[in-house]
């Protein structure tokens, strides 16, 4: 699926070209995924469990190796350079960092220590790091209050903020955000997405986020890709996707004609329209 021409002529920060990912040498998870993130954009990858969203993000951030996954075809270009062979720390140094699904804060470190680990790859001195710590606390005032608590004892929302703040400490140009809404109350999800939007417009950080919560993701994303069984089946501007009848029916739960069981339509329609 070619997307380059559909996106406005803005500079591209990340380009994923037709990648295939195989786990354990046998399990084919991604069957040719392509996507593009313009600089300063918020792009969402949507889809159900097991569609390949997390795998796509991990393929980009090179965290697949630890899980015996391999990118076997295609290439990934970040700021004009191919990055498949880089280690995760090289990639962080170049400005692309992932916030993993399920937060993954360091439970036995305090919130502030967690944030500081995000600055591990930086070489620009203690003063600059301290200034960024202040910046993170300004975006997440709640973290300032909890700065000396062990991260393991903070709430789910605070952990999500801590994980995003920690990523921010690496001074990234791009954040890969995996399932930020997971397990959080709707109000908190809204709060997190508001901050994502603010970071995007004030700090110029580009976001590629994977979400199951299609509704909220499409309200904030400028562009979206829908993944199913390891393939991109549909893509488009956030607003356009929200109006798409199939997306409404399959992901937003708004039926076209009256009530019917989701299970009945889902299969044959998907097969017919998307997977044919």
């Amino acid at each position, binding site marked *: 699926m070619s997307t380059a021409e559909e996106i406005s002529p803005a500079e591209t920060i990340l380009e994923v070209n037709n990648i295939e990912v195989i786990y354990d040498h046998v399990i084919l998870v991604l069957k040719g995924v392509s996507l593009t993130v313009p600089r300063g954009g918020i792009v969402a990858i949507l889809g159900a469990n097991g569609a390949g969203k997390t795998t796509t993000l991990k393929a980009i951030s090179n965290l697949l190796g630890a899980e015996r996954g391999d990118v076997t075809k295609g290439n990934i270009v970040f700021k004009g350079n191919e990055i498949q062979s880089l280690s995760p720390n090289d990639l962080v140094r170049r400005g692309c960092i992932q916030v*993993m699904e399920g937060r993954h804060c360091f439970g036995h470190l305090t919130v502030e220590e967690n944030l*500081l680990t995000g600055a591990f790859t930086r070489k620009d001195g203690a003063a600059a790091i301290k200034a960024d710590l202040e910046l993170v606390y300004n975006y997440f005032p709640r973290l300032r209050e909890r700065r000396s608590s062990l991260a393991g004892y903070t709430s789910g929302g605070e952990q999500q903020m801590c994980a995003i703040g920690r990523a921010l400490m690496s001074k990234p140009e791009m954040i890969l955000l995996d399932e930020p809404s997971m397990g959080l109350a709707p109000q908190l999800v809204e709060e997190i997405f508001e901050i994502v939007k603010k970071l995007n417009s004030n700090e110029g950080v580009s976001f590629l986020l994977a979400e199951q919560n299609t509704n909220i993701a499409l309200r904030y994303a400028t562009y979206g890709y829908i993944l199913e069984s390891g393939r991109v089946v549909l893509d488009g501007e956030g607003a356009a996707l929200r109006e798409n009848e199939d997306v409404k029916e399959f992901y937003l739960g708004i039926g076209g004609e009256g009530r019917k069981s989701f299970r009945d339509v889902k299969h044959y329609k998907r097969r017919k329209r998307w997977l044919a």
Partner: protein
Amino acid sequence: MGLLSEIFIEPFILIADIPDLFIQTLWEGFVSGILYALIALGFVLIFKASGVFNFAQGIMVVFAALALVSLHTKFGVPAWIALLLAIAIMGLLAIGIERIVLRPLVGQPDAILLMATIGLTLFLQGAGETIFGGEPQSMITEELGLPTGATDWHVLGGRVTFQHIDVAAIIIAGLMVAGLALFFSKTRIGRALRAVADDHQAALSVGISLNQIWVIVWFAAGIVALVTGIMWGARSDVSFALEVIALKALAVLILGGFTSVPGAIVGGLIIGVGEKVFEVYWGGIFGGGTEAWFAYVLALIFLLFRPQGLFGEKIIERV
């Protein structure tokens, strides 16, 4: 009746009768406890950061001490330079282990990594004997500027003897533990080490290089091994027999918990003091020689009643 009295009455009469012997026993136990604790500390460092149970920690103690002594006695290097070189050797060893052993085995089951460290033990044994020779050597205590001799303390109508080297050992061990604690809590690398111990995946994701961290912990464990080797060598001899004593650190770990630095220290002291006191006052019942098994029996009892150890990792669970 006789046995009960031997267990419950006579030892305490003896303690009351000759209190200076009791103090001396406590002191001896305390000193060897510190040394057990140091070996256990090496295990804990590596286990926390890489999840590898390093069977080779004991032989690393011997290897480091042998390298130091041989550099001085066989190759004629001045003592202080030999010390620096021994530190450098432990650094090279750490780099080598990371490159050759750990990196190719990333993501393998724990049992395989344990087997790899057993292989490492055999390698270090062979290499040590080939390069430095297998015969016991005496530690170059004086050349390193460590104190010798002893001070008597007259107390309670008797006297207690303190070897100066033991006092030095405790001071140095204390400084080293304090240094490590500071390093872990205050520095960027220390923070990264704790982050890796907490969550490998997340540490990778924020750009911490696991390979670099592994080299650093193995190096730290190597330095701990060197210090342990010097202290232990000064009390007896530097020989491969030390390695057997290092196995007692396993018992210390079971007592203290595999992931806790304070646990390693407290566990070491309990076992050190426990086995000395037990040997002196209750050893007669078993015909002596209880020091060889006391630690392991204590560890077994702990395994039955508190398998996570005294200070096992607090598992943070949020509801």
